[in-house]
C-alpha cells in the first residue's frame, strides 16, 4: 500500500517536474532531456536531432526517432575510438578473469560477477567515448569515493556470505544475480556521472547536500548496528526514519540553496543512491554476525524443511540477500525519490515564502 502510494507520488512528481513544456509530446520531452546529457563537444548534434524531430509526424515515427536519439546519447561516436576500444578490451579481460576466479572460489556468484563485469566494462567504454570531461571538483571526487566504497562494500558483503554459506547465494534462475549487478552499475553510473538536472552552477551544491545526507544516515545506521544486538531482521527496514529524514533534508536544503526544485530532487535522489549500497552492506553484515540462526515466523518454520537449504543460516541469509536486493536497492530508492520530490517542493515553497517576506 505504502509502495503504491510512493509510486503514485513519484509518477505525479515526475510529470510535474518534466511537464513544463505543455505543448511537447513525450518523444519531444525525451529527446530534449536526452540531448541535454550529450558532452559539450556534441551539443550541436543534440540541437540538430531535437530540431529534426519536428519533421517526424505520427506517433510511431516520433517514438522511433526518440529511441534513435537515446541510442546516440547513450553511445555517442567516440572521439578517441582506439582509447574506447582499449578500455573495452581491458574491461572484458578483467571481467573474464573475475568470472573465472568467482566460478572457482564462490560458484554461486559467478553469474553476478560476469554480468557486473560486462556492465562495468560497457559503462567505462561509454564514459571514455564521452570524453573530454571537466576537471573533477572536490565534492565530485568525494561522491565518487563514497559511491565506489558503497558498491565495493555491498559486493564484499555478498562475497563473505557466499564464502561462509555457499548455499545462501545459489541463484538457480539468475534473476537476483542480474538484478543486483544492474542496480549496482546503475548506482555507480548515476553517482559518478549524474545527469545535469541542477545545471552546472548548482552541481556542487547538489553534491554537497547529497554527501551530507548520505553520510549522516550512514553514520547513524552504523552506530545503530554497533550498539544494538544483531537480529535476523537486520538493523534497518527499506525505509527507516533516518533515511527518510536525510533524503528530505538534502532535497529541501539543496532546493533552497540552489533555488531550483530540480537541484533538490537530484540531491535527494543522490542521497538515496549513495546511501543504499552502504545500508545494504551494513544490514547484511549485521545478520552475518549472528551466532545462532533461528526461524522466527510460522511460515518459515513450515517452509524450511522443504526448501532444500542445508542449514537454517543459509535459508535465512538467502532470504535476506534477495530481500535486500529487491527492497533495499530497488524499492528503497524509488520511495526515497518520492520523498525527494516532496522535499524539493517543500524547499521551493520555503524559499518563495522567505522571498515574499523579504520583499513585503
Amino acid at each position, binding site marked *: 500500500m505504502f509502495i503504491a502510494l510512493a509510486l503514485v507520488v513519484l509518477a505525479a512528481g515526475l510529470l510535474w517536474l518534466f511537464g513544463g513544456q505543455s505543448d511537447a509530446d513525450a518523444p519531444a520531452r525525451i529527446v530534449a532531456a536526452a540531448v541535454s546529457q550529450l558532452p559539450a563537444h*556534441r551539443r*550541436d*548534434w543534440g*540541437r*540538430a*536531432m*531535437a*530540431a*529534426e524531430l*519536428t*519533421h*517526424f509526424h505520427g506517433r510511431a515515427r516520433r517514438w*522511433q*526517432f526518440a*529511441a*534513435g*536519439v*537515446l*541510442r*546516440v546519447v547513450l*553511445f*555517442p*561516436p567516440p*572521439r578517441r*575510438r582506439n582509447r574506447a576500444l582499449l578500455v573495452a578490451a581491458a574491461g572484458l579481460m578483467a571481467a573474464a578473469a573475475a568470472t573465472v576466479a568467482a566460478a572457482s572460489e564462490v560458484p554461486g556468484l559467478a553469474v553476478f560477477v560476469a554480468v557486473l563485469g560486462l556492465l562495468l566494462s560497457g559503462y567505462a567504454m561509454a564514459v571514455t567515448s564521452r570524453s573530454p570531461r571537466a576537471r573533477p571538483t572536490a565534492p565530485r571526487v568525494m561522491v565518487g569515493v563514497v559511491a565506489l566504497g558503497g558498491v565495493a562494500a555491498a559486493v564484499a558483503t555478498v562475497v563473505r556470505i557466499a564464502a561462509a554459506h555457499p548455499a545462501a547465494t545459489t541463484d538457480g534462475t539468475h534473476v537476483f544475480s542480474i538484478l543486483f549487478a544492474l542496480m549496482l552499475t546503475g548506482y555507480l553510473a548515476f553517482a559518478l556521472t549524474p545527469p545535469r538536472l541542477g545545471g552546472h552552477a548548482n552541481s556542487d551544491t547538489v553534491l554537497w547536500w547529497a554527501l551530507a545526507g548520505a553520510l549522516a544516515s550512514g553514520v547513524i545506521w552504523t552506530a545503530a548496528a554497533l550498539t544494538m544486538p544483531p537480529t535476523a531482521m537486520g538493523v534497518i527496514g527499506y525505509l527507516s526514519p533516518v533515511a527518510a529524514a536525510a533524503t528530505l533534508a538534502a532535497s529541501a536544503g539543496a532546493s533552497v540553496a540552489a533555488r531550483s526544485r530540480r537541484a533538490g530532487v537530484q540531491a535527494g535522489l543522490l542521497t538515496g543512491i549513495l546511501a543504499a549500497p552502504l545500508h545494504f552492506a551494513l544490514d547484511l553484515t549485521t545478520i552475518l554476525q549472528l551466532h545462532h540462526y533461528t526461524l522466527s515466523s510460522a511460515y518459515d518454520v513450515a517452509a524450511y524443511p522443504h526448501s532444500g537449504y542445508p542449514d537454517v543460516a543459509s535459508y535465512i541469509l538467502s532470504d535476506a540477500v534477495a530481500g535486500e536486493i529487491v527492497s533495499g536497492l530497488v524499492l528503497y530508492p524509488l520511495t526515497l525519490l518520492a520523498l525527494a520530490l516532496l522535499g524539493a517542493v517543500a524547499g521551493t515553497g520555503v524559499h518563495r515564502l522567505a522571498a515574499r517576506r523579504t520583499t513585503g
Partner: protein
Amino acid sequence: MTRIRRPSARTTAVLQALAEEPGRWRYGYELCSQLGMQAGSMYPILIRLADRGLLETSWETERVPGRPARHLYRLTGAGRAYAGAVAAAAGTASRPATASPSVTATRRARPRLGGA
C-alpha cells in the same frame, strides 16, 4: 601495400546519397527517409564523417516560424573524393576479378578514412 578498412554498407549508402548532389545542403529527416535509416544509425555516421573532415555542417539561416533551425550537411572536397573512391572500390569489388593485381593494389592504397 597499405590496406584500408572499407566503410560499412550504411556509411557507404550515406556517402552515396550525399554525393548524388554534392553541392546541395541535405538534412537529417531527408537522409533518413531516402535511405530508410533510423536516427540512431544515421546520426553516428554523420558525426563520424564530420569528425573526419568529410562532412561540412551548417545551420539553416532562413528562419521558419514554428520550428527550430535545421542542421544541414554536405560533403567537403575530401568527402567527395572519398565518396568517389568508395564508390569505385565498391564497383571493383562487385565486378568479376578482371583487373590486374597492380591495379587492385593501387585502388586499395588509399588513406585510411573508413571505419565510420
